[in-house]
């Protein structure tokens, strides 16, 4: 792990100091369910995430955690229920629209642009920053309205001729992307194709790419999967560091209890597609249902 990440080890995990009780609700899941054919992957799930929170979802394998993320980011639309982001119904929006509203995510099974360099991966996201607002449409509903951030945007004609804002904007996109790569400790690998990077670096590159979108809500899908304890330690620092530095509401999925327990003050625990507990790490650790989900029931054994 690079020095950059080590530096953050000295920082206090700020998330524990910030009280989020009084801030606005950023994301609200309202009774959502998801069926795949006859299989019910998620059942009547509800929870809210407040602005500035660092929250976690835990649960055994197959509990439906990633399905929740896929519904929030509109890879799937839920079979029933609704999802609200900044008091706006985003249930049926398409993935790119949800993204432009400020939700960025990483993937459990890494989805980098494998043939592009690490830098190009981040630049692809940086160039796509949107500013957004909600505007009342004809039927009186609020609908999302986004326009490209002019600082990172230029027209088709300028692309075609490489004139006008092209070189200045490209330079800005490149500089910012390099800074983000540097932040996750990948500056020295900037020109290597993303697909050839070691596994842990690919995970951090995904985080940098998501951050490049300047999101309001960051979804991290099993960021510690396949990492050794030392890497997991550095990753925890990276996540808490990013959370405090960018003042970014973050939702993390993990099935490693220790990661979540250490960094998240707000935890939702799932099993078989349903929420079985929600609360602080202490509450979760002492919850009988959580213990039975992870360790098994006495009855079931006997």
């Amino acid at each position, binding site marked *: 792990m690079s020095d950059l990440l080590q530096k953050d080890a000295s920082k206090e995990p700020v998330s524990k100091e910030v009280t989020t009780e009084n801030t606005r609700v950023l994301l609200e899941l309202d009774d959502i369910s998801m069926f795949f054919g006859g299989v019910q992957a998620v059942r009547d799930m509800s929870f809210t995430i407040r602005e500035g929170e660092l929250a976690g979802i835990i649960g055994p394998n197959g509990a439906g955690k990633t399905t929740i993320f896929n519904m929030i980011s509109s890879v799937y639309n839920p079979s029933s229920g609704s999802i609200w982001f900044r008091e706006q119904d985003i249930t049926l929006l398409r993935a*790119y629209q949800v993204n432009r509203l400020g939700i960025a995510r990483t993937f459990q099974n890494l989805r980098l642009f494998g043939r592009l360099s690490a830098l190009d991966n981040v630049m692809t996201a940086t*160039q796509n920053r949107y500013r957004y607002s909600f505007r009342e449409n004809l039927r009186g509903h609020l609908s999302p309205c986004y326009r490209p951030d002019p600082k990172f945007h230029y027209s088709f004609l300028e692309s075609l001729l490489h004139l006008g804002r092209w070189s200045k904007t490209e330079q800005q996109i490149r500089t910012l992307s390099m800074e983000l790569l540097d932040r996750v400790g990948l500056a020295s690998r900037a020109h290597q194709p993303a697909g050839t990077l070691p596994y842990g670096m690919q995970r951090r590159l995904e985080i940098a790419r998501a951050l490049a979108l300047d999101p309001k809500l960051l979804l991290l899908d099993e960021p510690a999967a396949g990492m050794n304890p030392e890497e997991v330690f550095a990753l925890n620092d990276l996540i808490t560091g990013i959370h405090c530095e960018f003042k970014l509401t973050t939702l993390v999925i993990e099935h490693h209890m220790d990661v979540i327990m250490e960094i998240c003050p707000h935890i939702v625990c799932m099993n078989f597609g349903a929420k079985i507990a929600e609360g602080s790490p202490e509450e979760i650790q002492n919850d009988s249902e959580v213990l039975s989900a992870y360790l098994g029931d006495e009855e079931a054994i006997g």
Partner: protein
Amino acid sequence: MMKKSLLGNAAFAVVGLTLALWPLSGYEEGIVVLLCINCIAAMGVSLLTGFTGIFTLGHAAYMALGAYTAAIMTVRYGVHYLPAIVAGGIIAVLVAWLIGVPTLRLTGDYYAIASIGLGEAIRLILENWQSFTRGARGFPGIDSYTTRWTAVLFFTVLGAGMFNLIGSRLGRELKASRDDRIAASLMGFNTTASRMKALLISAFYCGISGALLGGYMNFIQPSMFDMMKSTELTAVVVFGGLGSMSGTLIGSAIITSVMEYFRDISQYRMLIYGALLVSIMVLRPEGVLGNREIWSFLPRFGRRD
């Protein structure tokens, strides 16, 4: 010092002036014209196949549309050839848009199959619309408007434009949706729209190329734009390297000149064409340049920051 952003434009201006002014015999001039025509079409297909990952086996149809549009406009309506060539490209774009709306939902092999069908359908319409296109007898009497200057002019402008595009936000957008469509849509790209942009631009290039071909041959007929021509376009792109625009130009240049060199042995040169493709598949399966551009092999330009 010249601005770095205009390096590509300057390079194309130099190549264009060289192609236009270098003293050549009449026969060699013909090869240069053909080279320019083939390169324009290949660049279009390369954007779609190499950069966006959409395999097409029907792009000769867009060449046919360009060729017939320009031919009919110049011969029947006496339009000047420059606007007629551009109109050829625009008609190809319009038809591509109509085709793209329903078919771009298909991915991978499915789009390739659909493109064969649509390409053949367009060819058959041109063949059977006797009153307008003279059908299978072909369309004779086109002015030889594709002089060396015209061909080189179009090649230079379109070539510089293409290299500029792939070095811009659109290039990254297309490559992102090629490498991982779901991730691209979660980076805020409307991937269906990205694919449509690539299809429209590639149709424009093929339309222009077809219009120039008509002016070079003075005669066009639908069978010139059959599936053989389409596969040849895709083969050139694969030969040069998927995802490398300079590779496409090199591939196109190699194949065009080899085919010209063996013109004496007429149909047997297809054997050489086949041998060339097989040898590249064996020796360099990723194509001549792989997915890198030629300047990334130069030490100085390899790192661009």
